[in-house]
């Protein structure tokens, strides 16, 4: 088949897409055909490193000459069946009329974001880089942190249409081989048309995919992923996603912040306690408030009780409806502020928080204590931003329990929730470890944090190949 017809055939297979570029030239009597996608290849590099040297070649062109004269690094001989795949991955595919062999040169290029500080993982002191949507950039951000042959990246393709690159990263000799094997097995088992973001993989990597609890760790910062990999975790990098996943995951990970490791350990411990308080305030705070108001008002200090009675007495709605209304209002404002441009988002916040809240109170539709309780609960939600979705669900449940059953319902809900969390295990790791089961050594970096020189062992909450991480003499 002539080179021209071959090019035509592939163009047809790609449905004559607008970004297909093909070209045919004659080099010393030999026809040379090029085909690539303009949208994902470096056109300047193509002209300079591939087209020009070939077009200037004066002798009879052979396939061996062709491989020698191109000025690119990633050159490979491919089979006919691999042509489409290579074109779609940003390679220039070259056919010559005097050879059956096909050459592919990877010169993929597309616009990417510069690594920037992720909005939810800001640090006062410490690395500010964040992952981007570019897979190669993300790998380089990690590789830069490990000058060791033990760092392993294994790539797999997921998605029958998207063929998304999913890379399993781990440190050989530290990560448990059985966990690495299980991660790869689960990824290979995924049968889906496409993976648009790493979040698609979360439920597919979870033991209990229907559970509302998060069973896979997420991070946007390479220093966080590097630290987790040093503990023996396995990272999963998905092309086109700035969120890198880690397994095994324990709830404690979301109570920790990268900031904790770049500041004084006593201060870090204090901040972690504050986070736990924030977590409790936001999850059960509104539920307790409504339970106190409806069932147990007599246990409140008398002065506070009078204040609440004075402010809630003129409110036309029952406390449950009032609290639901405020919750709904907040959720609407939150959704709106996420989607609006920042200048409009600010205006919405002012309208929502100041005008609606203040006017609602003045109009006698909302009581100030309820507004304060809900405001605290909603702000406290972001002390553990990675768990905000889960806490919001729990918050609603506790509001209903507090309103219907009082403290009895709240405590019942807490027992139910903790028993449920205790029953969740992913990759053999209990969700609530090291609190339940209690693992003393892991609590050195638990609710409280000790200095780095005392964290001589890797976590025991999950298995890893090497327990020691610091020489005893250190």
């Amino acid at each position, binding site marked *: 088949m002539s080179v021209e017809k071959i090019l035509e055939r592939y163009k047809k297979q790609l449905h004559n897409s607008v970004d297909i570029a093909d070209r045919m030239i004659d080099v010393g009597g030999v026809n040379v055909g090029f085909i690539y996608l303009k949208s994902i290849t470096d056109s300047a590099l193509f002209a300079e490193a591939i087209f020009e040297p070939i077009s200037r070649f004066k002798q009879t062109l052979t396939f061996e000459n062709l491989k020698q004269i191109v000025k690119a690094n990633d050159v490979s001989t491919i089979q006919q069946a691999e042509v489409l795949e290579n074109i779609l991955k940003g390679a220039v595919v070259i056919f010559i009329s005097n050879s059956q062999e096909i050459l592919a040169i990877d010169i993929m290029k597309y616009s990417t974001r510069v690594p920037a500080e992720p909005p939810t993982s800001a640090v006062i002191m410490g690395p500010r880089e964040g992952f981007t949507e570019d897979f190669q950039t993300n790998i380089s951000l990690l590789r830069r942190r490990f000058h060791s042959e033990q760092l392993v990246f294994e790539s797999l393709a997921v998605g029958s249409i998207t063929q998304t690159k999913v890379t399993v990263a781990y440190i050989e000799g530290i990560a448990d081989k059985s966990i690495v094997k299980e991660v790869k097995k689960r990824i290979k088992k995924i049968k889906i048309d496409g993976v648009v973001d790493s979040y698609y993989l979360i439920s597919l990597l979870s033991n209990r995919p229907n559970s509302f609890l998060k069973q896979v760790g997420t991070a946007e910062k390479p220093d966080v992923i590097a630290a987790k990999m040093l503990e023996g975790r396995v990272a999963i990098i998905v092309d086109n996603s700035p969120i890198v996943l880690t397994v095994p995951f324990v709830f404690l990970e979301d109570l920790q912040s990268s900031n904790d490791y770049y500041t004084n350990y006593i201060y870090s411990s204090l901040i972690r306690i504050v986070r736990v308080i924030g977590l409790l305030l936001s999850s059960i705070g509104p539920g307790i408030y409504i339970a106190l108001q409806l069932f147990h008002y007599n246990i409140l*200090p008398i002065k*506070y009780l009078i204040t609440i009675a004075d402010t809630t007495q003129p409110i036309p709605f029952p406390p449950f409806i009032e609290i639901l209304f405020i919750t709904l209002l907040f959720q609407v404002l939150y959704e709106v502020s996420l989607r609006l441009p920042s200048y409009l988002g600010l205006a919405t916040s002012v309208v929502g928080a100041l005008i609606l809240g203040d006017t609602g109170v003045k109009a006698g539709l909302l009581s100030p204590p309820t507004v304060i309780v809900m405001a605290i609960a909603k702000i406290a939600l972001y002390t553990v931003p990675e768990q905000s979705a889960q806490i919001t669900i729990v918050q609603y449940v506790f509001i209903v329990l507090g309103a219907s059953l009082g403290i009895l*319902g709240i405590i*019942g809900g807490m027992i139910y929730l903790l028993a449920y969390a*205790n029953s969740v295990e992913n990759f053999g790791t209990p969700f609530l470890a090291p609190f339940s089961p209690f693992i003393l050594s892991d609590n050195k970096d638990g609710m409280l944090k000790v200095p780095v020189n005392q964290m001589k062992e890797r976590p025991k909450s999950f298995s890893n190949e090497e327990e020691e991480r610091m020489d005893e003499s250190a």
Partner: protein
Amino acid sequence: MKVLDKNINAWQLGIMLFILLFANKILVLPSLLFEGAGLEAVFIPVLFFVLEMGLLFLFYKLKTKHPAQSFSFLLKNRFGTPVQVVAFVFLCAYFLCKAVLLYNVTYIFFRNVVYKDYSSFLFLFCFIPIMNHLAISGLRVMGRTMQLFFPFMLTIVLFCLVVGVFGINSSVLMFSKPFAEIALTAAKHISSFGDVVLVFVVMHRVQIKKGEWKVVFSLVTLASVLVCLITVIFILSYTYTAFMHPYAIFEIMSYVKEYGGLGRIDVVSMVGIIVFAYFHLAIYLKAFMLCFKEVFPKINPLYSVLTFNLAFLLIVGFFILNLEQAVSFAEKILPYFAIIPFGIVPILSGLLFLIKKRKEVKNE
């Protein structure tokens, strides 16, 4: 839905026993004991805790001798299936009745103190899903959850005791009741004790390493001491009117209700009662499930949950509705069931040491 069951360790077993030893002993029992035995009531819990400790010691000996076998298997192996089935049918009935008693006492407490206009069904709606969930989640999940709550439970009890000390009215105990009356009161309320029998039911699910037995014994001793202290403080706080105050741990705090503008701190004891009640009922249901499985080994364990729920609802819904009826149930019917922890189980365990096995004991 699948019933999960994995092994528990010494700490989890100890905490389960710790919770079981509180039960109605921190609510209505001290008042009832005082009513029958006067100030001498303080000795009754001590006596029964000694017996419970003896039961635990018997278990320790049995478990050490047969670390991997279940009590059911040992009974079947030595005495045959009929004895094993009858013993476990009795145990099923025992745990069901104890659950009914505890539920009623807790329900009456909450109805009188907080939820005045609410029906019993609201409480059933609250308790049943949680005890079912805990029991179905399995012993390990239940044990781990209790372990998480244990520091709070212990803190609450200690807090109540410390606050209760400030309410003591009299430091002199004038003993005057004849022995017969004390013995009669003890016999009437014997069914409030004997929960340690649970250890025989979960025997094959417990993994205790060498040297960990002290954890179990320490936690049981701690619970016994705390319950005795609550009884003493309660009786010393109310002396001659103690029989009028049926909720011991709650009542010992009512002298010191308002504390430095913090509001009524007796809510702390109420929180403690709630936590104890939830876990306690879940343990009874789990024990019932395990016994039911020994009686009907081929039936799906979920049917045991269903049976328990139906029987529980039937008894609670139709037969026992107020404090008087609950007390009457505890004093007239339940004492006969006390023969299980203080009679049948120790005798059978003793005989297991004496009678030679029928055939080779194999691991289950």
